[in-house]
């Protein structure tokens, strides 16, 4: 269940021994929460959103960020109820045909990302279609303390740990930092291995 970010700011400020927010203003802590939530979500692919991509005939390359401004990574592409196959990399297509970039088929079959900003949908088709693209969402910025978290509850402790670690770095409090940060990063790496 989403939770307001305000109480989490209180908890984090207590953990870094700055209950009165003398060293770390609450607005700044909220901003750190924005960034840590984005990193956790991008790495672990927790909050997924979708959008419509209207394709153009004979075309295989589409910009991702210009089309889906709140996307961080494409996780699936669906043509109606049919999932396209996710290729591990675009070079795979070279084994199929040297002319894949201009080849035309009856329906879309596969997709992959090139870098993080280019979506390849294979093969090109003769008419414009509408595809549904599923992507990891760029979570919103916390602007007010009533704003709600977006990642699932079980990741809120990680969110607080990472944010507190950033505040300890800011305070140059390296003594307390090590345990908190290494634990958080282990969780992020572990989460990544499950994606």
């Amino acid at each position, binding site marked *: 269940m989403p939770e307001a970010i305000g109480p989490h700011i209180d908890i984090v400020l207590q953990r870094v021994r700055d209950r009165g927010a003398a060293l770390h203003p609450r607005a*700044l802590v909220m*901003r750190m929460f924005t*960034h*840590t939530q*984005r*990193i956790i979500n*991008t*790495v672990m692919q927790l909050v997924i959103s979708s959008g419509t991509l209207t394709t*153009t*005939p*004979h*075309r*295989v*390359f589409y*910009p991702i*960020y210009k089309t889906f401004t709140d996307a*961080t990574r494409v996780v699936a592409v669906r043509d109606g109820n049919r999932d396209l196959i996710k290729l591990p990399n*675009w070079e795979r297509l*070279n084994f199929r045909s*040297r*002319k*894949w*970039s*201009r*080849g035309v088929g009856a329906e879309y079959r596969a997709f992959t990302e*090139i*870098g*993080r*900003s*280019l979506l390849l949908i294979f093969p*090109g088709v003769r008419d414009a279609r509408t595809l549904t693209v599923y992507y990891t969402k*760029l979570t919103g910025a916390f602007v007010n303390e009533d704003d709600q978290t977006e990642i699932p509850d079980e990741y809120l402790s990680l969110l607080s740990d990472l944010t507190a670690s*950033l505040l300890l*770095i*800011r305070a*140059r409090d*390296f003594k307390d*930092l090590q345990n908190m*940060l290494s634990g958080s*990063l282990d969780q*992020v*790496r572990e989460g*990544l291995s499950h994606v």
Partner: protein
Amino acid sequence: MSSSSVRSLAQDFAYDRADATRLEFHYEDAIRRLAHVGWFVDVTLVSVDATTGLFTIPSGGVSIIGVFHDDSILDELSIIQVEALNPEWRDVVGNPKAYITNDESRNNFTIYPRPAMKSKDFSFITGTPLGEDFPEYAVAVIHTKVDTDEAEFLELPLALRVLAEEFSLESQIRDEPFAKLCKQLSDIFIRVLE
């Protein structure tokens, strides 16, 4: 992701003591490094003159990931490989099979053999240069690019990278342990985000 938001975040960590001009410089440096890693990619069409084999990497491009001539993908060859194939390779005109990036300049690439045909006009009637309007015999280049407007999720790792550079420089605010930690954390974040 904008330069100002990354620099502002960096100043939050630096208690506004970092040099604003240097932060801008560090930011541009960090963005260029990302471009080499290949996060931001684009496809650009390049027109072809008959028998011209030397091309410039499209504006804003950093490194080449793939090159197509007309409807075919080209293989990447090193200069040593192409010279072994044919010592007089620069004179060969025909249907392009490969591209070479480590020839004369970092900003250029060469196509082998040199294309025999001039590309058709770049007139995009339906407004889809990479779709129906793709000009025959043109070259399309997939390349990494320097991009400052995308991927807001990278703001924190970039701010940490900028701080690492700023606080490792010889200055009144130099702080090696802090700079080292910022660099390590930035590297970890970028690695897990890849």
